[in-house]
């Protein structure tokens, strides 16, 4: 399982690094919000979920998709704006969804996914089959009213939900300390009568364990948990034609990207230390990831652009 987690984290990182290159080359369109550095959150959480569990995501959603098991071919085709993309090219990077695997969509609106996640959790509660929903959002989202309303109602209704705050220390250019007074986002939980847990978001096993506990609680009918994952956005907030210049200090960046803090390196070292992963197995894994990504790009480029005459298709359900 841990090896699978490592593979997923590497794939997420390489996917986004590739997306940046493709965007620079103008082969993919729109905006790219890289998840590089935060992989342990998506993978730690989703590895504790079942396929039938659901998630909602954010503008920075590629990692959540991959961690929940999305097909990178169709993701890549969506970035390329092609008909074989998850949304037939209608959505793009910020609106990838795969309802078949319970990925209910990226979302361009900060905190916009939280109420929707509550609704999915309500559905699961009514279904009674023990499914849970995990809902990803950033530190910046804690400034929004929808964050508060969702915590309140989820707690009141004991919804099977895990609120996953990805505190990557920044909302766009603003450091989290500059937009809220209390650093520990888990402190919000108390006023709603639900558990608030802070974990090292760069320790995928810790995230997994904390999620598992929250999932058990949720499946047991005891309601939601607020999981606060401290992590770091290695790269820029968003790019269109070119990556914007870095404005944060080199020291800060170095402290988070150091081998002992990088989630991927940490898991590699951990698995190596346990003797579960050899140097050559890791090399093979990285090669496979690269091959899969090359194949995804080939898949995307082989897919046609949507036909303008299909512009009105998908508007209203029959």
């Amino acid at each position: 399982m841990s090896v699978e987690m490592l593979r997923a984290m590497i794939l997420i990182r390489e996917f986004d690094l590739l997306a940046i290159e493709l965007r620079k080359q103008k082969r993919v369109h729109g905006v790219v919000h890289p998840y590089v550095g935060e992989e342990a959150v998506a993978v730690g959480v989703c590895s504790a979920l079942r396929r039938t569990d659901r998630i909602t995501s954010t503008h920075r959603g590629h990692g959540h998709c991959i961690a929940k098991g999305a097909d990178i071919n169709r993701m890549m085709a969506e970035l390329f704006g092609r008909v074989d993309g998850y949304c037939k090219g209608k959505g793009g990077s910020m609106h990838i969804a795969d309802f078949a695997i319970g990925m209910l969509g990226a979302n361009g609106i900060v905190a916009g996914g939280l109420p929707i996640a509550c609704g999915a959790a309500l559905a699961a509660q009514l279904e009674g089959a023990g499914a849970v929903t995990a809902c990803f959002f950033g530190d910046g989202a804690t400034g929004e009213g929808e964050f508060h309303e969702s915590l309140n109602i989820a707690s009141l209704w004991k919804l099977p939900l895990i609120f996953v705050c990805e505190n990557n220390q920044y909302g766009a250019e603003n450091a989290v300390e500059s937009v809220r007074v209390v650093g520990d986002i888990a402190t919000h939980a108390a006023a709603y009568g639900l558990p608030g847990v802070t974990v090292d978001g760069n320790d995928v096993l810790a995230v997994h364990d904390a999620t598992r506990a929250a999932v058990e609680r949720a499946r047991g009918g005891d309601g939601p948990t607020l999981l606060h994952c401290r992590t770091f956005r290695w790269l820029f907030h968003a790019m269109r034609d070119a990556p914007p210049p870095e404005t944060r200090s080199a020291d800060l960046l170095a402290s988070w990207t150091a081998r002992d803090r990088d989630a991927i390196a940490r898991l590699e070292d951990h698995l190596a230390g346990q003797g579960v992963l050899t140097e050559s197995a890791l090399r093979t894994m990285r090669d496979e990831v690269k091959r899969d990504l090359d194949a995804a790009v080939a898949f995307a480029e082989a897919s046609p652009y949507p036909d303008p005459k299909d512009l009105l298709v998908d508007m209203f359900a029959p």
Partner: protein
Amino acid sequence: MREISFTQALDEAMLEEMERDARVITFATRRATALERTFGGKRVRFTPISEAAFTGIGLGAAGSGYRPVVHWGMVTFSFVAMDQIVNQASKIRYMFGGQADFPVTYRCTTGGGAQIAAQHSQSPYSMFMHLAGLKIVLPATPADAKGLLKSSIRDNNPVIFFECSRLAAVTGPVPDGDVTVPLGVAEVKRAGRDVTVVGLAYYVREALAVAEALAREGISVEVIDPRTLVPLDVAAIRASVRKTGRLVVVDEAPATCSAASEIIAVVTEDPETFRALKAPAQRVCAAPVPVPFSPPLEKAALPDQARIEAAIRRVL
């Protein structure tokens, strides 16, 4: 046929649809005691005063297999939830490439005339019409209210269902049994030759009263009730105007960028209908102010029969 009130008709629709389909659930800030007794607290909930959250909950549950009916209370309170409506509900199916359906119905009351002033007397359906992606329903009679609410709940898309407050206690004949009214089909509430009056909600009644009065003078007024604003039955409206050559639209929303503006635009831009138009189309709408509290001011702000009649006479 039984005579029941608009409100009773809506209550019947809810009861019957919840009976018919166990996936129909409902919530609002106000307890729906009768429904809760019948269907239990799991399917019938009351919520904290958190419109953004429970509007999104309706959408999320719809995308996960349920058919929520969410009552906002007054349309006023929907503005707290506007992100979920504009940025999420109206776009969610299309932007995800049609991979899931979102059968959620949002109900709300609308309109002025009860001295509850600016914030609580709004009629902003055109704001929602402008968003491609929502169906918009605005019934004018108890029978239409029941039949359209049933269709809305069975529709596989987000629907906003407006309930005109001044109609709540109005009674009318409602057929027994499971009778639906399709979305997107206008009704000629009174046939006529000389002028087409398109009325919305309460103003269908007022237009009919004016038509009745003018008939005595030999003026023949056709009164059309669109019943749904999206989809709008453009064909029916245009056909009527091609027949009468004259158009008056009556609504209690302010005129600017209103449903009335839209109806005039769809009539004017169609070559054949334009050629048939013999007089300037007229809007009889609210004054461009927030609805004032004081009765004489409120009365002056909203359309009435005298203003409808005057508009008809202007175009004849």
